[in-house]
């Protein structure tokens, strides 16, 4: 399936764009997405953490992705 991922903060700098499109097998999980990104962008290994938000909520690694999900990369936050 084709997914669109939104990239904030340092993840946008690493990937080089705000909206990143990629393909994953149907039933792919959040963990699969993280693995795919780590392979394509070795710099992700330098981050303190990487969380994924699905539809404006933090997602567990085991959750399954769907084509129309709003998928967002959340590197370590630093508000306040």
């Amino acid at each position, binding site marked *: 399936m084709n997914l669109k991922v939104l990239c904030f*903060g340092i993840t946008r700098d690493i990937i080089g764009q705000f909206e990143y499109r990629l393909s994953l097998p149907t039933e792919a999980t959040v963990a699969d997405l993280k693995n795919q990104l780590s392979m394509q962008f070795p710099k992700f290994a*330098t981050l303190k953490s990487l969380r994924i938000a699905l539809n404006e909520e*933090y997602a567990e690694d085991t959750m399954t992705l769907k084509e129309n999900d709003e998928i967002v990369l959340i590197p370590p*936050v630093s*508000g306040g």
Partner: protein
Amino acid sequence: MPSMIDIQLLHTPLSEQACLDFVKTDDTGGIVVFVGTVRNQTKGKAVVRLDFEAYEPMAISEMRKIAVQAVEQFSLKKISVHHRVGTLAIGEVPVVIAVSSAHRKAAFDACELVIDTLKETVPIWKKEIFEDGEVWVSATP
């Protein structure tokens, strides 16, 4: 509890007084306010300015979750959380948190927990701009 909670993500300068005015009630015993400011240096290196960005809808919903939790846990009267995004100069205010409570101890504890949690869970990022470069704060070890 919508009327007890005031969450705002703003692209314009924050007003501490607006947060204070929101939380004042006639049955409040104490109000505690936390005001963040942009510091002029990090580990001795001069900061020129800070750029804040947010995943806006989720930043608002995560701030609201923290506020709801604080109201319940500490029996707050009201809470106001304003966060700014965009470019901030030294001394400007990225965040204001005001809480009111019947008892001041609860107000102190609640306000501190809200800013601690905000810094852990709300999808907002800041980039420090130095004379000779820039860095996303806390992104890498």
